[in-house]
Each structure stands twice: as C-alpha cells, then as structure tokens.
C-alpha cells in the first residue's frame, strides 16, 4: 500500500476559522482530558478504540441511578414508568439519529459485536443454505468476520473476501464484475478502523440488492464521525457501539429493516422477549423486544441518548469540519516524519492513521508515546486478515476526534522523532 505522499489532498472539507475558537470550551466538557500522564497533559489519540465521555453523558447516567433507576416494562410503579420511558425514549432518539422509519427497527445490544452476532446467528441460521456465499471485505474487524465463520461452518456456507486496491479502497466495478450468484449477504465496514477508508455503502447496497443479496454495514467507526441515514445508505442492517459514540460501554445498536427482523427467529431466550411461555415451547414478543432478552442496560441507553443530544448540540457540521482540519494537519505532520509509512491512503477517509515506523515494534512506539502523555493503540486492531495483507503483524494507530488539538498532533510528530532516537 501507498505511503503518505499519495494523500495530501485526501480531506477536502473547507476549514472555517471560527470553528477553532470553540475547541477549549468543547474540551472542557470532557473531564478526563484534564489528566496528566507521566508529567504531560493527556493527548488522547485512541478514539477509534473507545471515545471519551462528555459531562452531559456522565451526569445523565449518574442521574438515572440517583433518581429514576428501576427495571422496565413490568414494574408499573412511578420509577418503573420513568425507567421504561427512558429506555423507549432512547430508542426513539436512536431511530431519529439514524433516520429509521420506525422505532421498532432499533434493537439495543451491548455493542457492534453483539449486533453482528445477532444477525449472523438469527438470520444466518434461518436463511443461509449449504453452498451460499457470505461476501466480506479484506478490511473487516474480527467482529464482522468471526460470527460469519461460525455460522458458515454450521450451515455449510463459505466466506469470500473483496480484495483491496493499493490505497486501501474497494473497486466497486470489480465487485460487480466478480459477483458470485450464490452471495446472500455482503458484510462491509462503513469506515475501516485501520485504514480510515470510508466505503460507499450506498453503492455496495445497490449492487447487493441488484443481485438479491442483503447488505450489513458495520458503522462502529463511522457513527461517531458523520451523520448516518439508513435510508440514504440503503443497507439492510446497521450496527454500531455506544462507547465509540461518546456514550458509556455496554450499550449498542442493531438497526434492521422491519420485514427482515420480523422474519428472523429470536436470538437469546429469556425475560421480555416472550409473549407466552409454555413448558415445551413459547411464543415471542413483537419487535423490538423479541430480540431483547433479559434486563437491559437502561443506564447505558440513557447515556447514549445524552450522547446523541450532545452531538446534536455540536452539530455534524462542526464535528466534520474540525475532524477534517485535524486530519489534514495529521497527514502533514506524519508526512514529515522520516521512516514512517502510512497504511491506507484512500481519498475518502476518516481521521484514523495506522502506520509502520522505522522497524520499531508498535508496542515500543506506543509505550514511548505514553511516556510523553500520548495515548495511541498498537496491535493488530482486530483485523488480522488485513494485517497479513499489509505484511505486518501489527501497526501503531492514532485516531482523532473533534476534541483533539493541532498541538496534540504536533506533539505526536515530535514524540515519534524522539522514539527513533531512543530505540535506534
């Protein structure tokens, strides 16, 4: 794959000067950003792993447990009604957030991983037949690979992978041209957690639909950084995690088309997902509850709802501009570090930067950066097939969010130079 020179113009959103002046007040909403690490101010550049949480979110969860906590749906006292309203209200908010036609299409899960396992297990067990093909891309996260391997083994289906171009993008014409007529579902990430590549889910969906296949979009990385609209994306399933979206861990979303969800058998069994339980068999509840067995994470949903409000307060415009501007700066700073080669240089990309650097092991780079107060991730990023394609066991990854600063990006460049001096 290419090096950094190839993508100087990758981030093309125009910069608005007055956006910058907001940064300090935005940062003030995130208490953790005030931390010192090894004598330096924390520069949190690991947003693709998990995001930090604004006070709005922390306080919403705190407030839930201080004054409204109860189990939902079957406790008809005041607290139970309030908690139920919180839970179903969060669902309605998520539905609006992603442009779902109906609240019933929004299923709460623990996160992207559970969302995809739900589809692979429920839809896959019911609808995949021997010889069917599941089409993935070579840039998928393990969470969008392993569940399909498990169900493919049980159903006698097979996995086929869309190869990548040199810049880490997908060539849609090749996808069309090499279409396998046994393909039943395409599982593609909306944005790569390694390469930063943004895939054209709309076109992929059109191709899939033209051949009678479904499309599942893994929006774990895109949901925090751009407005999603399931209608415009055209996909059939969409999965994302709250914890990457400025909300707490433990809550995530599966959106699916109503008719598909209706046709799917339940996933887990237990309280709340049933209509009536007999000794030998049971009948199941309506959507969305059919897929929500057991006491859910109401506190987490309250946090997710607050996070969506927080995003609404900032606006996608602000977030998009800020991150595009930071991303450009990161590209130019990293471009000046000698010995650094960036993986992923597609034109459409987010502010996620994975690189190899001067034969220093990513662990050692990350540990050195930590000494300087910079938090980055080192490893295979749960994308081993992609690592093998890149011919590296692991990479170092810096991933930005709107609360990062130009100064943090520059500290990254300087610290990488210092790491070279230390290790080589």
């Amino acid at each position, binding site marked *: 794959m290419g090096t950094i020179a190839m993508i100087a113009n990758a981030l093309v959103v125009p910069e608005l000067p007055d956006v910058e002046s907001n940064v300090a007040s935005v940062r003030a909403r995130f208490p953790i950003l005030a931390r010192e690490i090894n004598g330096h101010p924390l520069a949190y550049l690991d947003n693709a792993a998990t995001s930090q949480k604004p006070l709005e979110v922390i306080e919403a969860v705190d407030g839930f447990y201080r004054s409204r906590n109860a189990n939902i*749906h*079957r*406790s*008809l006292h*005041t607290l*139970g*009604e309030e908690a*139920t*309203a919180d839970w*179903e209200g969060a669902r309605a908010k998520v539905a609006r957030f992603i442009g779902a036609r109906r609240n019933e299409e929004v299923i709460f899960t623990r996160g992207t991983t559970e969302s995809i396992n739900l589809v692979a297990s429920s839809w896959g067990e019911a609808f995949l037949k021997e010889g069917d093909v599941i089409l993935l891309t070579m840039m998928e996260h393990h969470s969008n690979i392993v569940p399909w391997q498990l169900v493919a083994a049980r159903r006698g289906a097979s996995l086929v992978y869309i190869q990548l171009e040199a810049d880490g993008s997908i060539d849609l014409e090749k996808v069309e041209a090499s279409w396998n007529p046994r393909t039943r579902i395409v599982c593609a990430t909306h944005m790569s957690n390694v390469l930063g590549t943004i895939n054209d889910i709309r076109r992929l969906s059109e191709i899939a639909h033209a051949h009678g296949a479904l499309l599942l979009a893994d929006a774990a990385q895109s949901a925090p950084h751009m407005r999603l609209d399931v209608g415009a994306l055209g996909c059939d399933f969409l999965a994302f995690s709250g914890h990457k979206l400025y909300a707490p861990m433990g809550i995530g979303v599966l959106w699916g088309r109503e008719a598909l969800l209706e046709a799917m058998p339940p996933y887990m069994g237990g309280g*709340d997902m*049933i*209509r*009536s339980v007999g000794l030998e068999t049971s*009948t199941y*509840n309506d959507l969305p*509850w059919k897929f929500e067995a057991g006491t859910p994470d109401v506190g987490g949903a309250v946090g997710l709802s607050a996070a969506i409000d927080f995003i609404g307060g900032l606006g996608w415009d602000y977030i998009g501009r800020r991150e595009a501007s930071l991303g450009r700066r990161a590209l130019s700073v990293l471009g000046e570090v000698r010995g650094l080669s960036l993986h992923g240089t597609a034109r459409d990309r987010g502010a996620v930067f994975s690189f190899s650097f001067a034969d220093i092991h990513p662990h050692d780079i990350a540990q050195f950066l930590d000494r300087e107060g910079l938090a980055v991730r080192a490893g295979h990023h749960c994308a081993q097939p992609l690592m093998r394609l890149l011919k590296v066991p692991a990479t170092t990854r810096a991933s930005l969010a709107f609360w990062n600063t130009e100064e943090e990006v520059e500290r990254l460049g300087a610290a990488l130079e210092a790491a070279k001096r230390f290790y080589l």
Partner: protein
Amino acid sequence: MSEFDDLYQEVIMDHYRRPKGRADLSHIPDERAMENPTCGDTIKLEILHDEAGRISEVRHNGHGCAISTASASLMSEYTRGLTPEEARAAAERFIGALRGEGKLDELDSMGDLAALRGVAGLPVRVKCATLAWHALLRELGEKAS
C-alpha cells in the same frame, strides 16, 4: 388531580365494574386470545355485524385490570355502528395517541375514551389500555384477508 385519580376516573371505574359487551366467549378457543406479554393478561373478542356489514357489537372476555377491562368496555361502546374500516381507523388513532405517536388531543374527539388520557404518560400501562384494541385490529385484519 393526581396521576392516580387521573387514571382511575369515575368513568373508568364504572366501565370496570359493569363492563359493556362482556360475554361468555368460551366457544372461542384459548389460542385465539390476545396476550399482554407484560403481565399474562388475555382477551378474547367476537365481532357481530348487522346486515349492512356494520359492527353491531364487539364482545369481549378475559383476565384484565381495571384499565384494560374499562378500555374493552369503552371500545365495545365506541365501535357500535361503525364500519370495519372506521373501527380499524379508530383503533389506530387510539393506539397512536396513547403511544405518543399520534396527537393525544385526538382522544377528545373519541367521546368517553378521552377518560383514558392519563394512560399516555405511563408506558407500562399503555399496554393494558391498548390490549383490546390490538385484539380488535387483529380480528378485523383476519376478517379482511
């Protein structure tokens, strides 16, 4: 008026104590009962029509709380003389209003059903108040198809 008094109004308590349309429906098999997954309450319906095809009576029977019993009784009263299409539209308007999808004020144009207004703020109880109406939609739907 407290939330409770708002819920258990005089009209509701009257319909609960002397439900209109309640009938022995033991000839209808139990599998045809509509079930509230929240609490295991069930309701069976039977829809009688006049020669013109209008609803002459919706009969009901089942286990239910005051709210669900009163709602079934009010439904029986409200649907008398409606065409199946009108009844279906009424059910959708009523359910939508209580679930916060439609406008709550629509209830005001539905006669005594407005007494169930207090349910709208209580998502757990919405299921009680709408059980009979979901059963009505199912029965009308199956008739239609």
